[in-house]
C-alpha cells in the first residue's frame, strides 16, 4: 500500500439523484470519515471500488453500469429518478504535517467535479 508514493489528495465520491417530483437526494458514497467506525470498516470494498476505480477517467467503462445499478435499485424502492450524477471530490494534503491537518479535524474546502451524468429519456406524448 501507498507505494511508491502515498496518495497526495484526500478523495471521495458522491452520487446525486434527482427524482421526477423535483426532490434531490445526495449520498456520500465514500466519505469514510463521516461514517460510524464499524460501517467504514465494513464498507472497505465499497471505498476500494469507488475511490480506486470508479472515480478515474481511465475507468469510464464502469460509470454507466454503476449508475444503471443505482437506477434499478431506486426504482425497486419506488423512486422515479430523472437524473443521476456522480461527483468526485478532492483536496490536497499539506506539508509540514501538523495536528490541525488530521483527517477528522481538518475542515478545508473540497474541490469537486461531476464526472458522469445520466438523464432519463424524454417521455413521449401519451
Amino acid at each position, binding site marked *: *500500500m*501507498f*507505494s*511508491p*508514493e*502515498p*496518495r*497526495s489528495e*484526500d*478523495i*471521495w465520491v458522491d452520487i446525486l439523484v434527482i427524482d421526477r417530483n423535483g426532490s434531490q437526494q445526495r449520498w456520500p458514497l*465514500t*466519505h*469514510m*470519515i463521516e461514517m460510524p*467506525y464499524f460501517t*467504514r*470498516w*465494513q464498507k*472497505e*470494498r*465499497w*471505498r*476500494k*471500488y469507488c*475511490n*480506486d*476505480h*470508479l472515480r478515474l477517467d481511465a*475507468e469510464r*467503462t*464502469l460509470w454507466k*453500469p*454503476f449508475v444503471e*445499478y443505482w437506477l*434499478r435499485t431506486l426504482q425497486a424502492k419506488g423512486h422515479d429518478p430523472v437524473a443521476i450524477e456522480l461527483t468526485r471530490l478532492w483536496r490536497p*494534503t*499539506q*506539508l*509540514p*504535517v*501538523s*495536528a490541525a*491537518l*488530521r*483527517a*477528522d479535524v*481538518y475542515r478545508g474546502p473540497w474541490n469537486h467535479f461531476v464526472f458522469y451524468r445520466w438523464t432519463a429519456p424524454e417521455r413521449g406524448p401519451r
Partner: protein
Amino acid sequence: MIRCVRWLWLPLDAFDDWVRTPVDPRPLAFFRFWFGFLCLVNLLLLWNDLPMWLGNDGVLPPQTHLLLQDGTRFNFYMFTGYNDFTITLIRWCGLAGGLGLLAGFFPRVSACAMWLAVSSFSWRNMNILHSGDNLIRIGCFFLMFAHSGEAFTLRRWIATRRAGVRLKPFRHIPAWPQRILQLQLCVAYFVAGMWKATGVAWQSGTAVGTVLQLGEFQRFPIPDWVMTPIVSQLMTHGTLLFELGFPFLIWIPSLRMPVLLVGIVFHAGLEWTMNVQLFQWLITAYYILFLGPLFSRSTQATAIGPAATTAGPACSA
C-alpha cells in the same frame, strides 16, 4: 578446487535440508485454524454485497466485465459462465471451506473449496480486492498440499474430551508448504519495502504524515503528537526498516521473537489508524508459521511414522 565447490555447495545443502526436514505440525495447524476463521470473517463481510459486486444485474454486468478481464482463469465461472447461481456456489463453498479449515475437517478439501470461492469472486470483480484477498488465495493454495490437520482439529479435541486420556503424539509433517508460506511472507515484505524505498515521500520521511491526512483510510482517532514532522519521519523510516529488515532478521533464531513482536506492534498500530479491513489480521496470521520453537518448548512433539526416519524428534522453525 574441490574444496571450493564443496564450500559453495554448503548453503544449497542447508537449504535443501531446511525444506525437506519434517517439522512439528502445530504451527501450521494453528495457522490453518486462525486463517480459516479469518477467511470466514472475510466471506461474511462480503456475503450480502455479493449480488451487487458479482451479479449480472450488479455494478459490473457481463458485457462490461468482458471488456476489463484479461482471459479466463480457473474458477467457478469457467464452468458456469456468467450465471448468478455462481454467487450461491461461492457463498456455500466458501462457508464449507472456512468451517473445514477452522475445524480441521478434511483440511485439504476445505482449502481447495475456499481457494475456489476466493478465486471466483476475485476474477469476477477484481476492482473490489485488497491485499488480504491475495494472502487468502496464496494461503489456501499451499494449504491444499499441506498436512495441516495433524493438530488443533475438532475431532482431536472431542476425542480428548471423551477419552480424558493423552492422545498419540503429533507426527512430524513435510515442511515444504510451510516453508513456501514463510518465504511468501518475506517476499511480500521485501517487495513492499523496496517499492516504497523508491518513492520520494518515503525517502524524505513525509509519507506517514501524508497518509494520516487521508480521511478515506482513517479509522480511530490518533493523538496529536503523532502528527508532527519528526514523528512522521520516524514512522516513515521505521516502516522502511521493518519491511526491508523482516525478511532477513526473522531467520536469526535469537532475533525471531523480537522481530515478530515488532511486527505485531507495527500492524496493531496500522490496525488502529488505518481502515484496511482484515489485512493486518491476515498478514500477522502468517507469523504463526514462525512459532515452531515456541510450540516445541511447551511440549516436545515426538516423531512417529515414516517421517521419523529422516526427521528425528527435534523441530525446527
